[in-house]
Protein backbone atom coordinates (compact mmCIF):
# COMPACT_ATOMS: atom_id res chain seq x y z
CA UNK A 1 0.00 0.00 0.00
CA UNK A 2 1.21 3.50 -0.76
CA UNK A 3 2.30 5.13 2.48
CA UNK A 4 1.07 8.51 3.64
CA UNK A 5 -2.14 10.47 3.20
CA UNK A 6 -5.37 8.59 2.30
CA UNK A 7 -5.48 10.68 -0.89
CA UNK A 8 -2.39 8.75 -1.97
CA UNK A 9 -4.20 5.43 -1.87
CA UNK A 10 -4.77 3.90 -5.25
CA UNK A 11 -8.36 3.17 -6.25
CA UNK A 12 -7.62 -0.55 -5.97
CA UNK A 13 -6.20 -0.15 -2.45
CA UNK A 14 -8.97 2.12 -1.23
CA UNK A 15 -11.61 -0.15 -2.78
CA UNK A 16 -10.26 -3.16 -0.90
CA UNK A 17 -10.10 -1.25 2.40
CA UNK A 18 -13.62 0.09 1.94
CA UNK A 19 -14.96 -3.35 1.04
CA UNK A 20 -13.30 -4.79 4.15
CA UNK A 21 -14.89 -1.97 6.19
CA UNK A 22 -11.41 -0.82 7.26
CA UNK A 23 -11.84 2.56 5.59
CA UNK A 24 -14.93 4.72 5.60
CA UNK A 25 -15.82 6.54 2.36
CA UNK A 26 -16.74 9.53 4.52
CA UNK A 27 -13.30 9.56 6.18
CA UNK A 28 -11.58 9.16 2.83
CA UNK A 29 -13.64 11.93 1.23
CA UNK A 30 -13.17 14.28 4.18
CA UNK A 31 -9.39 13.68 4.21
CA UNK A 32 -9.16 14.30 0.47
CA UNK A 33 -11.24 17.49 0.73
CA UNK A 34 -8.93 18.72 3.51
CA UNK A 35 -5.92 17.99 1.34
CA UNK A 36 -7.49 19.94 -1.55
CA UNK A 37 -8.00 22.88 0.78
CA UNK A 38 -4.40 22.71 2.00
CA UNK A 39 -2.54 21.96 -1.22
CA UNK A 40 -4.58 23.13 -4.19
CA UNK A 41 -3.84 26.84 -3.81
CA UNK A 42 -0.35 25.90 -5.03
CA UNK A 43 -1.68 23.86 -7.97
CA UNK A 44 -4.96 25.43 -9.14
CA UNK A 45 -6.13 22.00 -10.22
CA UNK A 46 -9.76 22.54 -9.13
CA UNK A 47 -12.11 25.12 -10.62
CA UNK A 48 -14.87 24.10 -8.24
CA UNK A 49 -14.92 21.89 -5.15
CA UNK A 50 -18.34 20.38 -4.44
CA UNK A 51 -17.77 19.69 -0.76
CA UNK A 52 -21.38 19.34 0.38
CA UNK A 53 -22.36 17.04 -2.48
CA UNK A 54 -19.18 15.00 -1.95
CA UNK A 55 -19.86 14.38 1.72
CA UNK A 56 -23.48 13.56 0.98
CA UNK A 57 -22.43 11.06 -1.71
CA UNK A 58 -19.83 9.56 0.62
CA UNK A 59 -22.47 9.03 3.30
CA UNK A 60 -24.71 7.38 0.71
CA UNK A 61 -21.84 5.10 -0.30
CA UNK A 62 -21.24 4.21 3.32
CA UNK A 63 -24.88 3.31 3.79
CA UNK A 64 -24.77 1.21 0.64
CA UNK A 65 -21.74 -0.71 1.91
CA UNK A 66 -23.39 -1.34 5.27
CA UNK A 67 -26.43 -2.67 3.43
CA UNK A 68 -24.22 -5.16 1.57
CA UNK A 69 -23.57 -3.46 -1.77
CA UNK A 70 -20.16 -4.13 -3.31
CA UNK A 71 -18.12 -2.60 -6.10
CA UNK A 72 -14.56 -1.48 -6.78
CA UNK A 73 -15.58 2.17 -7.12
CA UNK A 74 -18.03 2.38 -4.25
CA UNK A 75 -17.07 5.40 -2.11
CA UNK A 76 -14.05 6.35 -4.27
CA UNK A 77 -13.49 10.13 -4.59
CA UNK A 78 -13.06 11.26 -8.20
CA UNK A 79 -13.18 14.55 -10.07
CA UNK A 80 -14.16 15.61 -13.57
CA UNK A 81 -12.38 17.67 -16.17
CA UNK A 82 -14.61 20.72 -16.47
CA UNK A 83 -15.81 19.83 -19.95
CA UNK A 84 -17.86 16.93 -18.53
CA UNK A 85 -21.38 18.15 -17.91
CA UNK A 86 -22.63 17.63 -14.38
CA UNK A 87 -26.30 18.08 -13.51
CA UNK A 88 -26.81 21.10 -11.29
CA UNK A 89 -23.07 21.75 -11.03
CA UNK A 90 -21.38 24.53 -13.02
CA UNK A 91 -19.49 23.33 -16.09
CA UNK A 92 -17.32 26.03 -17.62
CA UNK A 93 -14.81 24.37 -19.98
CA UNK A 94 -12.43 26.77 -18.16
CA UNK A 95 -13.93 29.59 -20.21
CA UNK A 96 -15.44 32.94 -19.43
CA UNK A 97 -18.09 32.13 -22.03
CA UNK A 98 -19.59 29.35 -19.91
CA UNK A 99 -19.01 30.88 -16.50
CA UNK A 100 -22.71 30.59 -15.65
CA UNK A 101 -23.39 27.29 -17.42
CA UNK A 102 -25.21 24.83 -15.19
CA UNK A 103 -26.19 21.69 -17.13
CA UNK A 104 -29.43 19.89 -16.46
CA UNK A 105 -28.02 16.43 -17.14
CA UNK A 106 -24.88 14.48 -16.37
CA UNK A 107 -22.56 13.41 -19.15
CA UNK A 108 -22.98 9.68 -19.78
CA UNK A 109 -19.58 8.94 -18.22
CA UNK A 110 -20.50 10.96 -15.13
CA UNK A 111 -23.75 9.03 -14.89
CA UNK A 112 -21.94 5.71 -15.15
CA UNK A 113 -19.32 6.62 -12.55
CA UNK A 114 -22.04 7.92 -10.24
CA UNK A 115 -23.94 4.67 -10.70
CA UNK A 116 -20.77 2.77 -9.79
CA UNK A 117 -20.79 4.59 -6.44
CA UNK A 118 -18.03 7.16 -6.91
CA UNK A 119 -17.98 10.41 -4.96
CA UNK A 120 -17.60 13.60 -7.03
CA UNK A 121 -15.15 16.02 -5.39
CA UNK A 122 -15.46 18.76 -7.98
CA UNK A 123 -14.56 20.07 -11.40
CA UNK A 124 -11.01 20.26 -12.68
CA UNK A 125 -9.00 22.80 -14.63
CA UNK A 126 -8.48 22.32 -18.36
CA UNK A 127 -7.28 24.37 -21.27
CA UNK A 128 -10.09 26.64 -22.46
CA UNK A 129 -12.46 24.34 -24.35
CA UNK A 130 -9.73 21.69 -24.19
CA UNK A 131 -7.36 23.63 -26.47
CA UNK A 132 -6.74 27.19 -25.32
CA UNK A 133 -4.06 26.87 -22.70
CA UNK A 134 -2.13 27.32 -20.60
CA UNK A 135 -3.64 30.80 -20.51
CA UNK A 136 -3.32 33.61 -17.98
CA UNK A 137 -6.14 35.78 -19.33
CA UNK A 138 -9.02 33.61 -18.09
CA UNK A 139 -11.09 33.79 -14.89
CA UNK A 140 -9.02 30.94 -13.41
CA UNK A 141 -5.26 30.42 -13.57
CA UNK A 142 -3.76 27.36 -15.29
CA UNK A 143 -2.98 24.26 -13.23
CA UNK A 144 0.60 23.74 -12.07
CA UNK A 145 2.70 20.61 -11.98
CA UNK A 146 2.87 19.10 -8.46
CA UNK A 147 6.42 17.80 -9.04
CA UNK A 148 7.61 21.37 -9.62
CA UNK A 149 5.01 24.11 -9.52
CA UNK A 150 7.00 26.25 -11.96
CA UNK A 151 6.35 23.60 -14.58
CA UNK A 152 3.58 22.87 -17.05
CA UNK A 153 1.18 20.02 -16.32
CA UNK A 154 0.63 19.23 -19.98
CA UNK A 155 -2.84 19.62 -21.36
CA UNK A 156 -5.56 19.90 -21.90
CA UNK A 157 -6.59 17.63 -18.98
CA UNK A 158 -4.25 19.70 -16.85
CA UNK A 159 -6.22 19.73 -13.60
CA UNK A 160 -6.82 15.98 -13.85
CA UNK A 161 -3.09 15.28 -14.12
CA UNK A 162 -2.17 17.61 -11.27
CA UNK A 163 -4.97 16.52 -8.92
CA UNK A 164 -4.33 12.79 -9.28
CA UNK A 165 -0.56 13.14 -8.89
CA UNK A 166 -0.95 15.33 -5.79
CA UNK A 167 -3.45 13.02 -4.10
CA UNK A 168 -6.35 15.46 -4.53
CA UNK A 169 -8.50 12.82 -6.27
CA UNK A 170 -8.03 9.09 -6.59
CA UNK A 171 -9.20 9.16 -10.18
CA UNK A 172 -10.26 11.67 -12.78
CA UNK A 173 -11.64 11.95 -16.25
CA UNK A 174 -9.90 13.47 -19.22
CA UNK A 175 -10.53 13.95 -22.90
CA UNK A 176 -8.01 13.37 -25.65
CA UNK A 177 -8.15 14.85 -29.16
CA UNK A 178 -4.41 15.14 -29.85
CA UNK A 179 -2.84 14.02 -26.57
CA UNK A 180 -4.85 15.78 -23.88
CA UNK A 181 -5.03 12.78 -21.54
CA UNK A 182 -1.57 11.38 -22.21
CA UNK A 183 0.49 14.58 -22.11
CA UNK A 184 -0.61 15.50 -18.56
CA UNK A 185 -0.24 11.85 -17.58
CA UNK A 186 3.38 11.95 -18.77
CA UNK A 187 4.30 15.31 -17.26
CA UNK A 188 2.53 14.61 -13.96
CA UNK A 189 3.75 11.01 -13.61
CA UNK A 190 0.38 9.26 -13.62
CA UNK A 191 -1.47 6.83 -15.92
CA UNK A 192 -3.90 7.98 -18.58
CA UNK A 193 -5.76 6.06 -21.25
CA UNK A 194 -7.04 7.32 -24.58
CA UNK A 195 -9.46 4.60 -25.65
CA UNK A 196 -10.48 3.39 -29.10
CA UNK A 197 -13.07 5.78 -30.59
CA UNK A 198 -16.52 4.48 -29.75
CA UNK A 199 -15.60 2.64 -26.55
CA UNK A 200 -16.45 5.45 -24.12
CA UNK A 201 -19.46 7.69 -24.70
CA UNK A 202 -18.79 11.37 -25.35
CA UNK A 203 -22.36 12.46 -24.72
CA UNK A 204 -22.29 15.46 -22.43
CA UNK A 205 -18.56 16.07 -22.95
CA UNK A 206 -18.13 19.50 -24.55
CA UNK A 207 -16.62 18.73 -27.96
CA UNK A 208 -13.43 20.09 -29.47
CA UNK A 209 -13.05 18.18 -32.76
CA UNK A 210 -15.69 15.44 -32.90
CA UNK A 211 -13.94 13.21 -35.42
CA UNK A 212 -10.93 12.91 -33.09
CA UNK A 213 -12.36 13.45 -29.58
CA UNK A 214 -12.22 10.62 -27.06
CA UNK A 215 -13.02 10.49 -23.33
CA UNK A 216 -10.97 8.38 -20.94
CA UNK A 217 -9.71 7.72 -17.40
CA UNK A 218 -6.71 9.16 -15.56
CA UNK A 219 -5.39 7.69 -12.30
CA UNK A 220 -2.23 6.91 -10.39
CA UNK A 221 -1.86 3.43 -11.89
CA UNK A 222 -2.80 1.48 -15.00
CA UNK A 223 -4.80 -0.82 -12.75
CA UNK A 224 -6.86 2.13 -11.53
CA UNK A 225 -7.44 3.22 -15.15
CA UNK A 226 -8.70 -0.30 -15.84
CA UNK A 227 -11.10 -0.12 -12.88
CA UNK A 228 -12.40 3.25 -14.06
CA UNK A 229 -12.68 2.07 -17.66
CA UNK A 230 -14.76 -0.91 -16.55
CA UNK A 231 -17.36 1.60 -15.37
CA UNK A 232 -16.91 4.21 -18.10
CA UNK A 233 -16.96 1.97 -21.19
CA UNK A 234 -20.08 0.70 -22.84
CA UNK A 235 -22.51 1.41 -25.60
CA UNK A 236 -24.52 4.63 -25.57
CA UNK A 237 -27.15 4.89 -28.25
CA UNK A 238 -27.17 8.67 -27.90
CA UNK A 239 -23.53 8.99 -29.05
CA UNK A 240 -23.56 8.23 -32.78
CA UNK A 241 -19.94 7.05 -32.64
CA UNK A 242 -20.53 4.68 -29.73
CA UNK A 243 -20.00 1.03 -30.61
CA UNK A 244 -22.36 -1.69 -29.44
CA UNK A 245 -20.22 -4.53 -28.18
CA UNK A 246 -20.09 -6.99 -25.29
CA UNK A 247 -18.98 -5.21 -22.14
CA UNK A 248 -15.42 -6.23 -21.36
CA UNK A 249 -13.69 -6.49 -17.98
CA UNK A 250 -10.40 -4.66 -18.14
CA UNK A 251 -9.26 -4.96 -14.53
CA UNK A 252 -9.60 -8.73 -14.36
CA UNK A 253 -6.67 -10.01 -16.37
CA UNK A 254 -3.96 -7.45 -15.68
CA UNK A 255 -1.60 -10.06 -14.28
CA UNK A 256 -1.82 -12.51 -17.21
CA UNK A 257 1.77 -13.20 -18.32
CA UNK A 258 3.38 -11.03 -20.99
CA UNK A 259 5.69 -13.79 -22.17
CA UNK A 260 5.92 -13.77 -25.95
CA UNK A 261 4.08 -10.48 -26.44
CA UNK A 262 5.50 -8.76 -29.52
CA UNK A 263 6.53 -5.19 -28.67
CA UNK A 264 7.57 -2.77 -31.41
CA UNK A 265 9.71 0.21 -30.43
CA UNK A 266 8.98 3.37 -32.43
CA UNK A 267 12.55 4.55 -32.00
CA UNK A 268 12.53 6.91 -34.98
CA UNK A 269 9.62 8.83 -33.45
CA UNK A 270 11.61 10.07 -30.49
CA UNK A 271 15.13 9.88 -31.89
CA UNK A 272 14.53 11.46 -35.29
CA UNK A 273 11.07 12.90 -35.87
CA UNK A 274 10.92 14.71 -32.53
CA UNK A 275 14.39 14.78 -31.07
CA UNK A 276 13.99 13.78 -27.44
CA UNK A 277 16.20 14.79 -24.54
CA UNK A 278 18.97 12.43 -23.37
CA UNK A 279 16.98 11.52 -20.26
CA UNK A 280 14.01 10.47 -22.38
CA UNK A 281 16.29 8.34 -24.55
CA UNK A 282 17.75 6.67 -21.44
CA UNK A 283 14.28 6.03 -20.04
CA UNK A 284 13.20 4.40 -23.31
CA UNK A 285 16.27 2.16 -23.24
CA UNK A 286 15.48 1.11 -19.68
CA UNK A 287 11.81 0.57 -20.53
CA UNK A 288 12.76 -1.67 -23.43
CA UNK A 289 14.98 -3.75 -21.13
CA UNK A 290 12.20 -4.01 -18.54
CA UNK A 291 9.76 -5.31 -21.14
CA UNK A 292 12.33 -7.87 -22.29
CA UNK A 293 12.73 -9.00 -18.68
CA UNK A 294 8.96 -9.41 -18.51
CA UNK A 295 9.22 -11.89 -21.39
CA UNK A 296 8.24 -9.62 -24.29
CA UNK A 297 9.82 -10.00 -27.70
CA UNK A 298 11.07 -6.52 -28.49
CA UNK A 299 12.05 -5.27 -31.93
CA UNK A 300 12.16 -1.98 -33.78
CA UNK A 301 8.95 -0.86 -35.48
CA UNK A 302 8.31 1.72 -38.16
CA UNK A 303 5.37 3.95 -38.97
CA UNK A 304 4.95 7.04 -41.15
CA UNK A 305 6.57 10.09 -39.59
CA UNK A 306 5.10 11.93 -36.61
CA UNK A 307 4.88 15.02 -38.82
CA UNK A 308 2.48 13.26 -41.18
CA UNK A 309 0.10 12.28 -38.37
CA UNK A 310 0.47 15.70 -36.79
CA UNK A 311 -0.32 17.59 -40.00
CA UNK A 312 -3.53 15.60 -40.48
CA UNK A 313 -4.49 15.95 -36.81
CA UNK A 314 -3.89 19.70 -36.64
CA UNK A 315 -5.82 20.44 -39.83
CA UNK A 316 -8.81 18.42 -38.62
CA UNK A 317 -8.70 19.91 -35.11
CA UNK A 318 -8.40 23.49 -36.39
CA UNK A 319 -11.21 23.13 -38.92
CA UNK A 320 -13.61 21.31 -36.62
CA UNK A 321 -12.87 23.43 -33.54
CA UNK A 322 -13.46 26.61 -35.55
CA UNK A 323 -16.71 25.19 -36.92
CA UNK A 324 -17.89 24.31 -33.40
CA UNK A 325 -17.10 27.79 -32.09
CA UNK A 326 -17.75 29.99 -35.13
CA UNK A 327 -20.98 31.54 -33.90
CA UNK A 328 -19.57 32.31 -30.46
CA UNK A 329 -16.28 33.56 -31.91
CA UNK A 330 -18.12 36.05 -34.10
CA UNK A 331 -20.29 37.27 -31.24
CA UNK A 332 -17.87 37.18 -28.28
CA UNK A 333 -14.35 36.99 -29.69
CA UNK A 334 -12.66 39.05 -27.00
CA UNK A 335 -13.96 36.79 -24.22
CA UNK A 336 -11.83 33.88 -25.40
CA UNK A 337 -8.21 33.60 -24.30
CA UNK A 338 -5.51 34.68 -26.72
CA UNK A 339 -4.18 31.11 -26.83
CA UNK A 340 -7.58 29.80 -27.91
CA UNK A 341 -7.85 32.44 -30.63
CA UNK A 342 -4.37 31.66 -31.97
CA UNK A 343 -5.05 27.93 -32.10
CA UNK A 344 -8.60 28.03 -33.44
CA UNK A 345 -9.14 31.16 -35.55
CA UNK A 346 -6.85 29.89 -38.31
CA UNK A 347 -9.41 27.15 -38.84
CA UNK A 348 -11.60 29.81 -40.49
CA UNK A 349 -9.16 29.94 -43.39
CA UNK A 350 -8.97 26.19 -44.09
CA UNK A 351 -10.59 25.30 -47.41
CA UNK A 352 -13.04 22.41 -47.54
CA UNK A 353 -10.69 20.70 -50.02
CA UNK A 354 -7.84 20.86 -47.49
CA UNK A 355 -10.02 19.44 -44.72
CA UNK A 356 -11.20 16.58 -46.93
CA UNK A 357 -7.65 15.89 -48.07
CA UNK A 358 -6.69 15.57 -44.40
CA UNK A 359 -9.57 13.18 -43.73
CA UNK A 360 -8.60 11.03 -46.72
CA UNK A 361 -4.97 11.01 -45.64
CA UNK A 362 -6.15 9.96 -42.18
CA UNK A 363 -7.63 6.80 -43.68
CA UNK A 364 -4.28 6.01 -45.27
CA UNK A 365 -2.49 6.57 -41.97
CA UNK A 366 -4.98 4.27 -40.21
CA UNK A 367 -4.21 1.54 -42.73
CA UNK A 368 -0.47 2.09 -42.39
CA UNK A 369 -0.73 1.91 -38.59
CA UNK A 370 -2.85 -1.20 -38.75
CA UNK A 371 -0.21 -2.85 -40.92
CA UNK A 372 2.33 -2.41 -38.11
CA UNK A 373 0.10 -4.48 -35.83
CA UNK A 374 0.50 -7.48 -38.10
CA UNK A 375 4.04 -7.72 -36.76
CA UNK A 376 3.50 -6.37 -33.26
CA UNK A 377 0.91 -6.69 -30.50
CA UNK A 378 1.79 -3.29 -29.03
CA UNK A 379 4.03 -0.37 -29.96
CA UNK A 380 5.92 1.77 -27.48
CA UNK A 381 7.26 5.29 -27.70
CA UNK A 382 7.83 8.33 -25.58
CA UNK A 383 4.77 10.59 -25.45
CA UNK A 384 6.93 13.68 -24.98
CA UNK A 385 10.34 14.89 -26.06
CA UNK A 386 11.32 15.97 -22.57
CA UNK A 387 10.11 16.15 -18.99
CA UNK A 388 7.61 18.91 -18.17
CA UNK A 389 8.86 22.28 -19.44
CA UNK A 390 8.42 25.52 -17.57
CA UNK A 391 4.92 26.95 -17.73
CA UNK A 392 6.44 30.21 -18.94
CA UNK A 393 7.97 28.47 -21.97
CA UNK A 394 4.62 27.49 -23.48
CA UNK A 395 3.80 29.09 -26.83
CA UNK A 396 0.34 29.86 -28.24
CA UNK A 397 1.26 28.13 -31.51
CA UNK A 398 2.36 24.84 -29.88
CA UNK A 399 1.00 21.94 -31.84
CA UNK A 400 1.51 23.79 -35.12
CA UNK A 401 5.19 24.56 -34.66
CA UNK A 402 6.12 21.56 -32.50
CA UNK A 403 4.43 18.26 -33.36
CA UNK A 404 2.90 16.15 -30.62
CA UNK A 405 4.06 12.53 -30.46
CA UNK A 406 0.70 11.63 -28.97
CA UNK A 407 -1.38 12.77 -31.96
CA UNK A 408 -0.36 9.59 -33.80
CA UNK A 409 -2.86 7.48 -31.82
CA UNK A 410 -5.69 9.97 -32.31
CA UNK A 411 -5.26 10.09 -36.06
CA UNK A 412 -4.77 6.31 -36.24
CA UNK A 413 -7.93 5.69 -34.15
CA UNK A 414 -6.14 3.30 -31.81
CA UNK A 415 -5.99 3.13 -28.01
CA UNK A 416 -2.96 4.44 -26.20
CA UNK A 417 -1.90 4.34 -22.57
CA UNK A 418 0.72 6.48 -20.87
CA UNK A 419 2.28 5.26 -17.64
CA UNK A 420 5.16 6.66 -15.63
CA UNK A 421 8.35 5.38 -17.25
CA UNK A 422 10.77 6.76 -14.67
CA UNK A 423 12.19 10.01 -13.35
CA UNK A 424 14.89 12.47 -14.36
CA UNK A 425 17.84 13.15 -12.08
CA UNK A 426 15.95 16.22 -10.83
CA UNK A 427 12.93 14.13 -9.92
CA UNK A 428 10.60 15.01 -12.79
CA UNK A 429 8.49 12.16 -14.18
CA UNK A 430 8.82 10.80 -17.72
CA UNK A 431 6.05 8.95 -19.53
CA UNK A 432 6.04 5.73 -21.50
CA UNK A 433 3.39 5.41 -24.23
CA UNK A 434 1.95 1.99 -25.06
CA UNK A 435 -0.16 1.88 -28.24
CA UNK A 436 -2.26 -1.07 -29.35
CA UNK A 437 -4.56 -1.91 -32.25
CA UNK A 438 -8.21 -0.90 -32.00
CA UNK A 439 -10.04 -2.45 -29.03
CA UNK A 440 -6.83 -3.69 -27.40
CA UNK A 441 -7.31 -1.71 -24.18
CA UNK A 442 -7.01 -4.89 -22.13
CA UNK A 443 -3.60 -5.63 -23.60
CA UNK A 444 -2.09 -2.17 -23.22
CA UNK A 445 -3.43 -1.87 -19.67
CA UNK A 446 -1.88 -5.26 -18.89
CA UNK A 447 1.48 -4.12 -20.27
CA UNK A 448 1.26 -0.83 -18.38
CA UNK A 449 0.31 -2.53 -15.13
CA UNK A 450 3.13 -5.05 -15.24
CA UNK A 451 5.61 -2.39 -16.33
CA UNK A 452 4.64 -0.28 -13.29
CA UNK A 453 5.00 -3.31 -11.01
CA UNK A 454 8.43 -4.10 -12.42
CA UNK A 455 9.82 -0.56 -12.24
CA UNK A 456 8.42 0.48 -8.85
CA UNK A 457 7.71 4.04 -10.01
CA UNK A 458 4.42 4.10 -8.13
CA UNK A 459 6.05 4.32 -4.70
CA UNK A 460 7.10 7.93 -5.27
CA UNK A 461 4.79 10.94 -4.89
CA UNK A 462 5.39 14.68 -5.28
CA UNK A 463 6.20 16.60 -2.13
CA UNK A 464 4.10 19.69 -1.66
Amino acid at each position, binding site marked *: MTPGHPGFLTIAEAGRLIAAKKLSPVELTRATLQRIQAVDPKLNSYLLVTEKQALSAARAAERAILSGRKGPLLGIPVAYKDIYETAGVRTTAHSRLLIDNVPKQDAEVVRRLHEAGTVMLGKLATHEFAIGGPAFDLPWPPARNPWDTRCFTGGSSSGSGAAVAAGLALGATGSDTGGSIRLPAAYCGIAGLKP*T*PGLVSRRGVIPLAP*SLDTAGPMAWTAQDCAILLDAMAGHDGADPAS*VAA*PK*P*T*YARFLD*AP*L*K*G*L*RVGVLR*RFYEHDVAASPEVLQMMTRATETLKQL*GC*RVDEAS*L*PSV*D*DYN*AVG*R*IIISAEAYAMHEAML*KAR*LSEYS*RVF*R*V*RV*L*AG*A*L*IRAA*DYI*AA*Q*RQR*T*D*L*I*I*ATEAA*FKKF*DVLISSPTASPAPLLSEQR*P*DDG*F*ARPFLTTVANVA*AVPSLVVCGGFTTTGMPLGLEIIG*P*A*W*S*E*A*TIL*RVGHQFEQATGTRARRPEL
Partner: protein
Amino acid sequence: MSVPPVTPVPSMSPAEMQILVSRAGLVLNPGQVADLVLAWRQLAGLISRVPHDRKLVDDMAITFRLAPPANAGSDPRSVPAIPAKAPGKAPRTARAKTRAVTGPAKRVAGRTLVKTKSAKRAKPTR
Protein backbone atom coordinates in the same frame (compact mmCIF):
# COMPACT_ATOMS: atom_id res chain seq x y z
CA MET B 1 5.92 7.40 -46.07
CA SER B 2 5.96 8.90 -49.52
CA VAL B 3 4.60 12.32 -48.83
CA PRO B 4 5.30 15.05 -51.35
CA PRO B 5 8.08 17.40 -50.33
CA VAL B 6 6.95 20.27 -48.15
CA THR B 7 6.34 23.23 -50.37
CA PRO B 8 7.38 26.62 -49.08
CA VAL B 9 4.53 28.52 -47.52
CA PRO B 10 3.84 31.58 -49.62
CA SER B 11 3.97 34.79 -47.67
CA MET B 12 0.71 36.63 -47.33
CA SER B 13 0.41 40.38 -47.30
CA PRO B 14 -1.74 42.08 -44.65
CA ALA B 15 -4.18 43.06 -47.42
CA GLU B 16 -4.53 39.45 -48.60
CA MET B 17 -5.07 38.29 -45.04
CA GLN B 18 -7.69 40.97 -44.56
CA ILE B 19 -9.59 39.64 -47.57
CA LEU B 20 -9.62 36.12 -46.11
CA VAL B 21 -10.66 37.40 -42.70
CA SER B 22 -13.49 39.44 -44.20
CA ARG B 23 -14.67 36.48 -46.25
CA ALA B 24 -14.77 34.41 -43.06
CA GLY B 25 -16.97 37.10 -41.52
CA LEU B 26 -14.53 37.90 -38.73
CA VAL B 27 -13.84 41.33 -37.33
CA LEU B 28 -10.34 41.37 -35.86
CA ASN B 29 -8.17 44.09 -34.38
CA PRO B 30 -4.57 44.50 -35.63
CA GLY B 31 -3.14 42.37 -32.79
CA GLN B 32 -5.57 39.56 -33.54
CA VAL B 33 -4.70 39.75 -37.25
CA ALA B 34 -1.00 39.50 -36.36
CA ASP B 35 -1.72 36.38 -34.27
CA LEU B 36 -3.73 34.91 -37.12
CA VAL B 37 -0.89 35.50 -39.59
CA LEU B 38 1.47 33.64 -37.23
CA ALA B 39 -0.91 30.68 -36.83
CA TRP B 40 -1.90 30.56 -40.48
CA ARG B 41 1.69 30.35 -41.67
CA GLN B 42 2.17 27.30 -39.45
CA LEU B 43 -1.10 25.73 -40.52
CA ALA B 44 -0.44 26.39 -44.22
CA GLY B 45 2.84 24.49 -43.82
CA LEU B 46 0.93 21.51 -42.41
CA ILE B 47 -1.63 21.66 -45.23
CA SER B 48 1.19 21.51 -47.77
CA ARG B 49 2.27 18.14 -46.28
CA VAL B 50 -1.03 16.47 -47.11
CA PRO B 51 -1.41 14.96 -50.60
CA HIS B 52 -4.17 16.56 -52.64
CA ASP B 53 -3.61 14.71 -55.92
CA ARG B 54 -5.73 11.61 -55.40
CA LYS B 55 -7.54 9.48 -57.89
CA LEU B 56 -11.26 10.21 -58.09
CA VAL B 57 -12.18 6.71 -56.97
CA ASP B 58 -9.68 6.62 -54.14
CA ASP B 59 -12.17 7.06 -51.35
CA MET B 60 -15.86 6.30 -51.20
CA ALA B 61 -16.74 7.68 -47.80
CA ILE B 62 -14.13 10.20 -46.62
CA THR B 63 -14.26 8.39 -43.33
CA PHE B 64 -13.21 5.14 -41.72
CA ARG B 65 -15.06 2.50 -39.81
CA LEU B 66 -13.54 0.23 -37.23
CA ALA B 67 -14.53 -3.40 -37.13
CA PRO B 68 -16.50 -4.09 -33.95
CA PRO B 69 -14.56 -5.57 -31.08
CA ALA B 70 -14.83 -9.33 -30.73
CA ASN B 71 -14.99 -9.68 -26.97
CA ALA B 72 -11.62 -7.97 -26.72
CA GLY B 73 -10.53 -7.72 -23.13
CA SER B 74 -13.07 -10.10 -21.72
CA ASP B 75 -10.80 -13.10 -21.60
CA PRO B 76 -7.03 -13.45 -21.47
CA ARG B 77 -7.17 -15.87 -24.37
CA SER B 78 -8.28 -13.01 -26.58
CA VAL B 79 -5.26 -10.97 -25.54
CA PRO B 80 -2.30 -11.55 -27.83
CA ALA B 81 0.33 -13.55 -25.95
CA ILE B 82 2.30 -15.47 -28.49
CA PRO B 83 4.87 -17.81 -26.94
CA ALA B 84 8.47 -16.79 -27.37
CA LYS B 85 9.97 -17.99 -30.64
CA ALA B 86 11.49 -21.40 -30.24
CA PRO B 87 14.72 -22.17 -32.09
CA GLY B 88 14.05 -23.84 -35.40
CA LYS B 89 10.73 -24.37 -37.11
CA ALA B 90 8.00 -25.43 -34.75
CA PRO B 91 6.21 -28.62 -35.73
CA ARG B 92 2.76 -28.13 -37.22
CA THR B 93 1.07 -29.74 -34.25
CA ALA B 94 2.76 -27.36 -31.83
CA ARG B 95 1.55 -24.35 -33.81
CA ALA B 96 -1.97 -25.69 -33.81
CA LYS B 97 -1.74 -26.14 -30.05
CA THR B 98 -0.60 -22.54 -29.65
CA ARG B 99 -3.60 -21.26 -31.57
CA ALA B 100 -5.89 -23.23 -29.32
CA VAL B 101 -4.42 -21.53 -26.25
CA THR B 102 -4.13 -18.00 -27.53
CA GLY B 103 -7.35 -17.85 -29.48
CA PRO B 104 -7.92 -17.38 -33.17
CA ALA B 105 -4.92 -16.22 -35.14
CA LYS B 106 -7.01 -13.56 -36.84
CA ARG B 107 -6.62 -10.25 -35.06
CA VAL B 108 -9.63 -8.96 -33.21
CA ALA B 109 -8.98 -5.42 -34.28
CA GLY B 110 -9.21 -5.72 -38.03
CA ARG B 111 -10.87 -2.78 -39.71
CA THR B 112 -13.39 -2.76 -42.47
CA LEU B 113 -11.21 -0.51 -44.50
CA VAL B 114 -10.81 -0.90 -48.21
CA LYS B 115 -7.22 -0.60 -49.32
CA THR B 116 -6.83 1.88 -52.09
CA LYS B 117 -3.98 2.84 -54.34
CA SER B 118 -3.28 5.83 -52.18
CA ALA B 119 -3.11 3.59 -49.15
CA LYS B 120 -0.02 2.04 -50.64
CA ARG B 121 1.57 5.47 -50.49
CA ALA B 122 1.10 5.53 -46.76
CA LYS B 123 3.30 2.52 -46.12
CA PRO B 124 6.35 3.29 -44.01
CA THR B 125 9.36 3.94 -46.15
CA ARG B 126 11.93 3.78 -43.42
